[in-house]
């Protein structure tokens, strides 16, 4: 029963009452584990102790470094790819678009197996790499590649949608005014796509930071070299430290993730109002 007409007077949110219950349920479901985790971590008091242990510090540093490198690589490769997907129509365009989205729906372990089969020592291309002395498995590079594979599509997809929503007229006007194509892209197109770029970058970075399955299978797990935070959490959980060890490390990762999210949102705030999507919550 939607008495939207009658409710319209109360702040103009006719669906507020109807949607409040499911929305609150969802919010509670997402918040409760995080709150429980934070509460347990503070209560147990192990967090500070663990924070200074080499095991955790190595994992933290590795996670932050690899996910940042992944993000930069994703930007370098993904921005041009997204632009071409948005602005041009080549044979097999739809196929490529689906391929780009595939890593998003693929289970990470499948991605890991695929990377191993392709780039492992006995892999399809791995053989050639090995011939030039480049063996990828068990290296930090492999961690970055695994993260890149699973997280780059988030950036590309978001950015592609962003580019598609920009009226090509702006670019035509810029060209008509004698500005080179590259400068147009840098000064006109990209700034206009900034919200999509930043959303995509957040998703990409977050996905890279949390990557587990592909990393384990392709890169292995070794402290300081390939054992990222998610791998460290699993290792702690299975060790004699058990759940308390895992809680402490999880709490640390939670704080880091929160920090990154806030950082991203603050950067987004500096986007001029006319570029920001006005209907979205800032």
């Amino acid at each position, binding site marked *: 029963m939607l008495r939207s007409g009658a409710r319209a007077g109360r702040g103009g949110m006719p669906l507020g009452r109807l949607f409040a219950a499911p929305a609150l349920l969802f919010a509670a479901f997402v918040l409760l584990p995080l709150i429980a985790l934070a509460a347990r971590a503070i209560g147990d008091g192990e967090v500070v102790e663990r924070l200074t242990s080499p095991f955790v510090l190595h994992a933290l540093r590795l996670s932050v470094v690899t996910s940042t490198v992944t993000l930069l690589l994703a930007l370098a490769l993904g921005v041009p790819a997204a632009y071409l997907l948005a602005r041009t129509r080549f044979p097999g365009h739809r196929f490529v678009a689906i391929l780009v989205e595939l890593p998003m729906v693929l*289970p*990470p*372990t499948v991605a890991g197996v695929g990377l*191993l089969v392709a780039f*492992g*020592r*006995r892999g399809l291309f791995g053989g050639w790499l090995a011939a030039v002395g480049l063996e990828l*498995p*068990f290296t930090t590079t492999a961690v970055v590649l695994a993260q890149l594979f699973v997280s780059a599509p988030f950036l590309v997809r978001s950015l592609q949608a962003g580019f598609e929503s920009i009226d090509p007229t702006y670019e035509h006007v810029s060209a008509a005014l004698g500005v080179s194509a590259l400068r147009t892209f840098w000064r006109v197109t990209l700034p206009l796509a900034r919200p999509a770029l930043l959303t995509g970058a957040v998703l990409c970075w977050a996905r890279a930071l949390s990557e*587990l*399955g592909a990393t*384990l*299978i392709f*890169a*292995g*797990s*070794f*402290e300081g*070299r*390939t*054992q990222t935070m998610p791998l460290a959490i*699993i*290792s702690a*959980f*299975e*060790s*004699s430290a*058990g*759940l308390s060890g895992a809680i402490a490390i999880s709490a640390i990762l939670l704080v880091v993730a929160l920090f990154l999210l806030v950082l991203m949102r603050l950067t987004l705030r500096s986007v001029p109002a006319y570029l920001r999507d006005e209907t979205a919550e800032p």
Partner: protein
Amino acid sequence: MIARPHARLLPLMLAALLAVVMFACGGDDSGGSTPIATAPSATVLPAAATASAASATATPTAEPLTGTVSVFAASSLTDVFTAAGEAFTEANPGVTVEFNFQSSSALAAQIEEAAPADVYASADEAQMQRLVDKELIAGAPAVFARNLPVIVVPADNPARIASATDLSKPGVKLVLAGEDVPIGRYARQVIGNLAADPAYGPAFKNAALANLVSNEANVRAVLAKIELGEADAGIVYRTDAMVSGDRVLAIAIPQSANVIATYPIAVVDSSENAEIAAAFVAFIRGTEGRRLLSDAGFEPGSGA
């Protein structure tokens, strides 16, 4: 113009999806969920009363057992326990056995967090003791089998490993299980024992561990990396090398330095199927179980 077959493609794809779901559900019941994606999956044996003339040597019980028993067992027991499960359900048609095969340490962690296990079979006493200390085990664990660690290399032996000494050769990619995983602990003990031998020297240990490139989640993950040829050498159980057959080459560890892996089994205290659990444990420790274990290459457990 580009043809748009969407009108027919969509119902076709939905039908295909439905077919896949029906096929997946219509087969075995899915059971024994494993929370950690990287671990080997659980297998379930339905209570099908197979019409086998050569029936298993069933221990006669007063009443036929019915129900489900959830067995958490070390990864190295995957093949032999699966076979044992089949034999057990043949002898007890009313029973369904669900397996959860992962590293003993991962399983212990899950049992600590109240995972629904009825039987726990570990690859070392330390992980079993971990649960005994937390009063999660009913009764006293019994050692039902022993095993021997062995060095394995890929079938074509890319690093030309001929003996244990070669583990310390520079550039060798060594893969072991994690420190808390039984085989990981045993392997490190072996390396330590070798280093204590004057023929190897203390530098052996540092050199060998410097070659370590990954701490895998369980013994089968180590085996997989060797089979794939991604690593040059690993330490697994002799029984795992047998399972891999031609895909790996096994190199014996000098007997003086080798350790004996002892496998205890016990009923979990919180089990709601204690009777079936006890029956399964008895089966493993009984004639049929011992035969299956020895066929798989396990040494007998301590007497009684």
